[in-house]
């Protein structure tokens, strides 16, 4: 298979080789059966053949071929295949077709044809000249027939080429003109030239050949084509110079491009040819997906309302970059009113958009700053001094919705407004910013704010005032704060002075107290000494008398002396109690802690009171556990026991009993003294441990006591880290319980 086959039928050699059935497929349907029969005829396999038949090229064109082939045999002499040539004989076949058509019929066609039809023989002599030829060329048929065609209608410059073409055809059966439709210049009788469309057919006839030329005057068309071409040229130049892509597209969903200028490549990165007929991509495919709907909407609205449309949207470039475009277009309608095309232009406005965005951002930033700056800001126009811009702080300062479009007079009290306006005029006239110190402004709700304002004139390039900018600071709070601070300062100074005075007074008092304290200590010591000294003598000399150191004492005298002695002891006891309380008050009660056997202490106490109990007829009993490990001040604890037990005996009538108990419980030594005495009413129980408090019953029954015993007992218990408590029921009895921690008692 030689490469010429591709020119003939449009299929490449490779395709022929790849598809064994291609030959059968390309056989014209009318010839297919005949050819297959011949090629597969078993009786003709070994015979050469020449056949003419039709094939169908890739483009659907019918091609007449002459197929001449001889069989090829294998070694055994069996025919394997045919080998031969294929010739394109379409032209000849067409001519034969023409020749077959009757002459009359030809003539009628020729005469009726719109074209000038001229026939000539192989020598170039005119043999036919139809009516149109007469009109077009200005020669009648009589005149023309017999003339040489070249001399009659071919302009001299082309005659040489014409002659060569004829000669070539006659020699080879093919030429540059025959079978073609070309445009050339022809010449009228008057010598003028004009463009014609020329189609020449060759009609072989025996050994010779006739030519038919069909000529159409295309002066008109050419003129308009030239005009169009010139126009197109102009537009093309224009379009190429437009900084945007010009297009014509269908109003379909792909925006299928019939034309789009090369600029689209600059914008989208894809060549214009990509888009033509959606060859590689549709224009819709490069629209940023989010914007597709908006674009469709705008265009559809334009179509619906028969008006141009304008839209701005984004395109996705080949390199992924996103470009903003501005598109302006309009629908073009056919006579039927249906949209035929959309014509328009697309401009890349990315930079402008960026600049706009930047400006918008800058503006937004400025607005944000202006609105959030904690200073009241306003702008008034220079002529009428109306507010044209105010910020939030200003609205907050003035109160209400803000004075946009208003003048000071419209919302401030007249006097205040006039003073503001006077300042404004001064600033605008003077041309320099001024600062206004403290002014009092009346707000919408009638409140007063103290402000400080800077006023700045804003002028145009010619120096004429345009605006007045004001920046006010609300210093009300600050002023108040200053006043408050001053007030606080004064108050603080006063307080400081008072505190100083109080402190010095306190120091004085302290000193005084210390002195008093000291005096008290001295007093107590003195009293102690001064009371004990005479008591020492009283008791000492009584003892001498009772010891009969001064001579015999009668029984009666002894009884009287015992009364004196007992009361002396009482007095001594009282002095001791007073001294003790004074020590507790002064915090000077100190303990001498040593291991103490509480049971033994209780027994000693019991033994000491036994005579008194027996005398009164009160039964006293001790029930003691062995409490070990307790440490305390033996003397003080003894005093504590004695107080409690003595009290119990005192308040228990004859026949009653007093039970002393010592037990260990929860890490404490618990000493209880329970009596069956008169009891203590609940309201008195709480006051029992108060100094000098004496139970009502004690007073009523004239039971002796100082009211210090329980106070002292409590102090001793607490000095040991313990507690003392009482439970009592009137007429039933009273129980005192002392709890003393073992081991971890309070230090002395």
């Amino acid at each position, binding site marked *: 298979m030689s490469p010429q086959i591709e020119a003939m039928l449009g299929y490449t050699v490779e395709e022929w080789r790849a598809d064994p059935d291609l030959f059968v497929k390309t056989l014209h349907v009318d010839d297919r059966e005949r050819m297959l029969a011949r090629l597969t005829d078993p009786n003709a396999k070994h015979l050469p053949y020449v056949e003419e038949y039709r094939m169908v090229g890739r483009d659907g064109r019918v091609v007449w071929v002459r197929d001449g082939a001889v069989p090829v045999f294998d070694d055994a002499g069996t025919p394997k295949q045919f080998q031969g040539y294929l010739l394109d004989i379409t032209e000849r076949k067409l001519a034969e077709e023409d020749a077959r058509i009757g002459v009359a019929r030809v003539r009628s066609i020729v005469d009726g044809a719109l074209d000038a039809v001229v026939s000539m023989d192989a020598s170039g002599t005119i043999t036919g000249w139809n009516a149109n030829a007469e009109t077009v060329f200005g020669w009648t048929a009589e005149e023309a027939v017999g003339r040489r065609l070249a001399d009659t209608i071919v302009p001299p410059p082309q005659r040489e080429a014409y002659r060569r073409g004829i000669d070539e055809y006659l020699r080879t059966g093919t030429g540059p003109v025959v079978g073609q439709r070309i445009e050339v210049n022809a010449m009228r009788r008057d010598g003028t030239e004009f463009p014609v469309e020329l189609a020449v057919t060759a009609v072989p006839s025996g050994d010779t050949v006739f030519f038919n030329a069909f000529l159409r005057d295309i002066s008109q068309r050419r003129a308009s084509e030239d005009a169009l071409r010139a126009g197109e040229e102009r537009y093309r130049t224009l379009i190429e110079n437009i900084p945007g892509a010009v297009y014509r597209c269908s109003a379909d969903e792909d925006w299928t491009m019939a034309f789009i200028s090369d600029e689209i490549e600059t914008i989208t990165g894809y060549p214009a040819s990509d888009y033509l007929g959606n060859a590689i991509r549709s224009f819709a495919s490069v629209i940023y997906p989010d914007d597709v709907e908006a674009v469709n909407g705008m265009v559809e609205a334009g179509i619906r309302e028969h008006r141009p449309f304008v839209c701005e949207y984004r395109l996705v470039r080949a390199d992924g970059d996103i470009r903003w475009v501005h598109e302006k277009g309009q629908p073009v309608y056919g006579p039927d009113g249906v949209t035929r095309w959309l014509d328009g232009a697309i401009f890349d406005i990315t930079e402008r958009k960026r600049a706009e965005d930047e400006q918008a951002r800058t503006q937004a930033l400025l607005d944000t700053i202006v609105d959030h700056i904690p200073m009241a800001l306003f702008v008034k126009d220079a002529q009428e001094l109306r507010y044209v811009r105010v910020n939030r702080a200003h609205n907050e300062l003035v109160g209400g919705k803000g004075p946009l479009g208003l003048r000071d007079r419209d919302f401030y009290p007249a006097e205040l407004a006039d003073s503001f306006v006077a300042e404004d005029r001064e600033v605008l006239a003077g041309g320099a910013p001024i600062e206004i110190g403290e002014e009092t402004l009346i707000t919408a709700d009638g409140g007063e704010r103290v402000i400080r304002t800077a006023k700045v004139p804003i002028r145009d390039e010619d120096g004429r005032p345009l605006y007045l900018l004001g920046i006010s600071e609300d210093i009300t709070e600050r002023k108040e704060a200053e006043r408050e601070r001053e007030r606080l300062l004064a108050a603080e100074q006063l307080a400081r002075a008072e505190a100083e005075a109080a402190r010095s007074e306190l120091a004085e008092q302290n000193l005084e107290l210390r002195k008093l304290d000291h005096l008290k200590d001295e007093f107590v010591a003195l009293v102690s*000494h001064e009371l*004990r*000294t005479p*008591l*020492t003598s009283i008791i*000492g*000399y009584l003892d*001498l008398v009772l010891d009969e*150191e001064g001579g015999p004492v009668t029984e009666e005298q002894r009884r009287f002396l015992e009364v004196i002695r007992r009361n002396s002891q009482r007095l001594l006891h009282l002095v*001791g109690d007073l001294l003790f309380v004074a020590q507790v008050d002064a915090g000077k009660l100190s303990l001498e802690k040593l291991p103490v056997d509480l049971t033994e202490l209780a027994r000693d106490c019991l033994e000491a009171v036994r005579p008194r109990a027996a005398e009164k007829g009160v039964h006293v009993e001790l029930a003691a556990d062995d409490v070990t490990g307790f440490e305390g001040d033996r003397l003080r604890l003894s005093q504590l026991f004695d107080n409690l037990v003595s009290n119990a005996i005192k308040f228990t009538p004859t026949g009653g009993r007093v039970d002393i108990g010592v037990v260990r419980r929860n890490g404490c030594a618990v000493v209880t003294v329970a009596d069956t005495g008169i009891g203590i009413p609940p309201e008195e129980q709480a006051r029992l441990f108060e100094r000098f408090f004496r139970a009502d019953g004690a007073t009523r029954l004239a039971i002796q006591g100082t009211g210090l015993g329980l106070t002292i007992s409590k102090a001793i218990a607490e000095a040991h880290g313990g507690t003392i408590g009482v439970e009592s029921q009137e007429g039933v009895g009273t129980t005192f319980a002392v709890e003393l921690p073992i081991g971890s008692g309070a230090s002395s």
Partner: protein
Amino acid sequence: VSDAPLVLVADDDEDIRHLVTLRLERAGCRVVAAATGDAALALAVAHDPALAVLDVMMPGMTGLEVTERIRESEDGTRMPILLLTARVQEADVEHGLAAGADGYVKKPFSGPELIERVRELLGLAA
């Protein structure tokens, strides 16, 4: 009589001074008595008593001071000193013992108690 130990008694209260003196004499002691600390110190130096019974609270030189002076002047010997005090604070007792006293008896005191302490300090059997 010369076998009887000599005891120095010092108390500014005349009644008590006599009471102590009487008790000591009945117990078989000889007594030199002083009403002030200064006198007591003078008698101590002059008589070199076997024992001193000193009241703590005396005008002028107190019993504690007298004790200190006596202890300062002593050279190898040591005179027992018994303090009499009407004060009951332990601090007073400590001060006394610190000053060099050998014991104390609180006022008011009983005769037998006083004599017992004196006998102890004189090294005599009760």
